[in-house]
């Protein structure tokens, strides 16, 4: 029951974020800063991949930003 409540809350949060997002944003000509590499969701490139592999082999949690794991027998 508790798990269902948590799942329901997550879905509600995501839906409300989606609806609330309709009033946010910028025009295409206002994206100069957002187009920079260090502002991209995957802008950290190989740093994240190397760090994720290190944390995957040393900690019990992984993933979240993208699919976890790492195809490694180290954990």
């Amino acid at each position, binding site marked *: 029951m508790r798990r269902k409540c948590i799942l329901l809350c997550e879905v509600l949060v995501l839906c409300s974020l989606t609806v609330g997002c309709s009033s946010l944003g910028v025009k295409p000509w206002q994206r100069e800063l*957002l187009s920079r590499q*260090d502002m991209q969701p995957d802008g950290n*490139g190989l740093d994240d991949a190397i760090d994720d592999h290190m944390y995957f082999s040393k900690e019990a949690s992984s*993933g*979240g930003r993208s*699919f976890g794991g790492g195809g490694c027998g180290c954990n």
Partner: protein
Amino acid sequence: MQLGPDPSSVRRRLIAASCALLSSSAARGEQGSVTDKIGRMVEDWKIQSALAYYREDGRIQAIEPVISAVRDLSDGGRLTLNFTFDSLSGSSPNGALPNHNPQTFASPSARSLAAARHLYTVAPGRLPVDPNYSDARVAGGVDWTLPLSRLTRLSVGGKFSYEDDFYSATANAGVEHDFNDKNTTVSLSVSSENDFLQPIGGAPTPRSDYALFEKGGHETKRGQGLLLGLTQVMTRNWLSEVNLSLDRFSGYLTDPYKLVSVIDGAGDPVGYVYENRPDSRTRRSVYLENRVGWTRASAGLALRYMTDTWGIHSDTAQLRLRWWNAGRDQYFEPSVRWYRQSAADFYRPWIAPNAAQETYLSADSRLAAFHALTYGLKYGIKLTDRLGGFGRGGTEFNVRLEYYQQTIQNGPAAPGALQGLDLYPSLKAVLLQIGFDY
């Protein structure tokens, strides 16, 4: 009378010279064509490469070259290839507790404790580690994103990983859609992973007595994942991302090389058993990331909460800051990451001889309650105008240094003879990474 050269001989020489000239021109032309082709091929790709050196204090060290190539396709799609090689060596904890007396173990390849060449002895007071740990891993992946419409994209991909004792293959697919003038993106992805384990010396029977060497052949495990994401442009310098993920693994999730000490009331080891983990695990996480940018700086804050059916809860916070110089061709990027996790329900640093009723148990410190801190600093310099005609827009050299420290919470009070020993040693590691982007 001096005879002139034979006209036919001159003609032959002229023909030969012309042929030589033409053939050398053709060779040069062909060479130029190949060079041009390679140049054009590379020109279409954005390449990132890095060489990472990782070293733990007294344990594992690893060298990891990584390369990634991304190409934007003419139809609006994108192709990403990546390749990784890992070379690991050093000493790996085997799960047993330190003791005041020497402890002798057998390497995983041994069939009994009688084969002396497979044995290693741990000095009193030291954490038991297998000193002969060595492994190499080759991994690669491909991702292809293709537009389905002006606002919708489909991505498919796969990756593989190969080690001496472990093979893994993963397939993933996802769809993402833009809303709100491309300020909002919603994505849904699924993945399926299949792993094949062939532990050195065989896969031990979980929970079996270490001295009996009950080992079988290979084992398998599978995983499925679901990731729901929302990316939102908040303002002209603020990007926000929320991900919900759910994944489930099943099969042989036990670490085939990890032991648990059996300790009597006086604190002396009376034996060891192989660990045993549940054969399924479901994890859920919420991930939130915000990026804010200014003309000469940017900041990224990532937060994650994760929980699983093994009773582990974890919190992660990571902050990255980047400062550019006035010319925007050099930057410094300090970072800090904080992580903590609770212990798995079945984490046991040791068990008592009469603990036969406990089905699942593991002394693996990665399943213990601990917190960890990572401090990092990265320096990057754009080489666009520094390499003559070779440099281009994304050409960059960078170097990164990280320090990682893991502090394990003390477990239950140690009986008699174990008192005074460091049963939960912390882990310290450094990572040095050199990168070149082109």
